[in-house]
């Protein structure tokens, strides 16, 4: 008990004197900035908040690793090594306590940032809840990074070890590996691994992969601690014990890492959550419940673009949120819903593709109709559809679009109902348009 008490007391002293409070302030300030980006906007998704915080832990872990590398050289810089020669405490224990102190400050900062983001998300998110497993994965990844950083600082006796550690970690912890989470190295690269798990609300988070990842990160942290002990204590018993533990740890880490192969995205992993659907005149908009705050805005966009085509063959009656951001689905037009999206444009483009372009060659009359649709929606778009036409026919198409716009809504609707099938079949010439 007294040993444990002494350890806690020494740890408390290290926590106070390791200047980690400055690091924590820096991390919290950055974290609040990061959280504001994550939870700002009309749509706040719990899953994105959870992964965002875990990803922030990885970014903060890079700075934490640099700080740990800096702290690892503290006794050397202050020339207090000789004082440790006569101390009752071993060198290795002092290193471990200092490492734990740095980790403690990082965890305090991470908890503060995550707490801030969760409180805001609690008030603003419309569906779901925090994913504690993902938050835990971020914390453990951060601990692993700090431990590796400390070991680097211990081994590299240079003042530039700390900034080099920060930048190398920033480059490789966040963007190392193949980017999609596949490949051996990506399994233990925190940023890449976490990014590969975040597939949006339509897919289940693979929690079964998080635990092995967290274990491998913890294994790396333990290995760093063991290496510190080995390098500090060169006695036979310690070396032997540490080597056995090192071997076991290496094996365990490798085994666990090999088990964390991220599965490819598949429809079997789709969530069963039913979409929220709401009618807007002749059309229906269906969204994932997490995106419910966007319903009114999307409905307004539908009513702005679609009414003249209501009920016509081939025109989508249902606008359903796309899980993968593609523009079309077999049964309904698909829209990509995300904060800051321009729904007018999305719906317009989706409709143009599905109604006029997808079924084959587009005639000049259809191009005129597309241009009218663009003008009507008020979406500022270049004349991309007309790029392949000659200058003369382009002018004619634009003129026809204008003259169709000049008709009354009833006349437009009547002409569309009468000529819709022929228009889509390519049997209407530009001159036949009103």
């Amino acid at each position, binding site marked *: 008990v007294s040993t444990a008490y002494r350890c806690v007391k020494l740890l408390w002293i290290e926590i106070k004197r390791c200047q980690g409070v400055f690091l924590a302030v820096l991390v919290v300030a950055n974290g609040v900035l990061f959280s504001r980006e994550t939870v700002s906007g009309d749509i706040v998704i719990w899953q994105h908040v959870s992964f965002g915080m875990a990803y922030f832990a990885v970014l903060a872990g890079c700075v934490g690793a640099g700080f740990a590398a800096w702290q690892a050289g*503290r006794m050397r810089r202050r020339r207090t090594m000789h004082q440790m020669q006569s101390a009752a405490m071993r060198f290795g224990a002092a290193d471990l306590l200092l490492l734990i102190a740095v980790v403690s400050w990082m965890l305090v900062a991470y908890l503060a940032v995550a707490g801030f983001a969760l409180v805001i998300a609690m008030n603003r998110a419309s569906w779901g809840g925090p994913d504690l497993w993902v938050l835990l994965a971020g914390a453990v990844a951060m601990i692993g990074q700090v431990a590796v950083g400390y070991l680097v600082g211990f081994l590299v006796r240079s*003042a*530039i070890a700390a*900034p080099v550690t920060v930048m190398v970690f*920033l*480059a490789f912890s*966040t*963007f190392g590996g193949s*980017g999609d989470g596949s490949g051996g190295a990506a399994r233990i690269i925190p940023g890449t691994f976490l990014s590969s798990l975040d597939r949006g609300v339509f897919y289940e988070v693979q929690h079964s992969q998080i635990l092995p990842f967290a274990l491998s990160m913890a294994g790396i942290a333990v290995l760093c601690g063991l290496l510190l002990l080995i390098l500090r204590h060169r006695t036979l018993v310690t070396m032997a014990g540490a080597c056995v533990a090192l071997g076991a740890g290496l094996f365990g880490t490798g085994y666990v890492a090999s088990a964390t192969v991220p599965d490819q995205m598949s429809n079997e992993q789709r969530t069963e959550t039913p979409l929220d659907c709401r009618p807007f005149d002749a059309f229906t908009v269906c969204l994932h419940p997490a995106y419910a705050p966007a319903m009114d805005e999307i409905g307004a966009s539908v009513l702005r673009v679609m009414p003249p085509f209501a009920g016509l063959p081939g025109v989508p009656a249902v606008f359903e949120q796309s899980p993968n951001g593609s523009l079309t689905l077999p049964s309904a037009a698909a829209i990509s819903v995300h904060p800051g999206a321009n729904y007018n444009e999305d719906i317009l483009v989706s409709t143009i593709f599905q109604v006029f372009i997808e079924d084959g060659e587009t005639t000049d009359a259809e191009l005129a109709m597309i241009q009218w649709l663009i003008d009507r929606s008020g979406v500022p778009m270049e004349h991309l559809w007309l790029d392949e036409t000659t200058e003369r026919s382009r002018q004619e198409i634009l003129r026809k679009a204008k003259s169709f716009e000049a008709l009354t809504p009833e006349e437009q609707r009547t002409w569309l109902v009468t000529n819709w099938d022929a228009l889509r079949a390519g049997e209407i010439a530009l001159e036949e348009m009103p």
Partner: protein
Amino acid sequence: MNALAQRLPIAANGFPRLMVLFLRQRQFLVGQAAVVAIIVAMNLLTGWFEAEGKAMRMTVCLVAGPALVASVVGIAMWSPSADLEQGSSFPLRWPRSLHLAALAGIGALGTTVTVAGWDQQVLDIDQPLMWARNLVVYTGFALVAGRLIGAQVSWVAPCAMAMVAVIRVLRANPVDFTAAQPAWAFPAHHTSSATAICLAGALFALGAIIATNYGPKVGDPAGE
């Protein structure tokens, strides 16, 4: 006038010797070696980026990479005898200026030329200009921080700023440098932003004036 006439020959004869001592004390060659190592590492990264074609990685390198060179410059300002230099009768402004110019100049030139060799089609920005501008920004930060908290800890300022800038840029996926950014996040601004260039220049000028006139924080011999 008489005193000046007496000092001039001493200055003329002693300056090269003083400069050698000055640079040796600051481990100038080690600093240069670190900068060259960074340039070599970046050349190696070039092939990797082109092979992978990842705009995000290149963005992080352009936004955060200069902080590494700036950190080396900031740390290299540290002197083990800063206390003694404060009482020097010889003005150290010129040795400090030459030291800073040599270190930052080689770092800026080498790395900017390296970045100019990268594939310029990946990002919709002037990549060498972004690298040079951010290097100027971060070096200014490091020099100011060196005066405030000590040269060997000055890397904290550019690294922290780089982290903020990375966070700002990573908001959008794919990377969009044209997205609106607050004025204080100028390392994340588009290269066409005149505000960012002006702020970068002003910050570097401030840092250079402080570093050359006053040197890093005194009473920090061990860089604690």
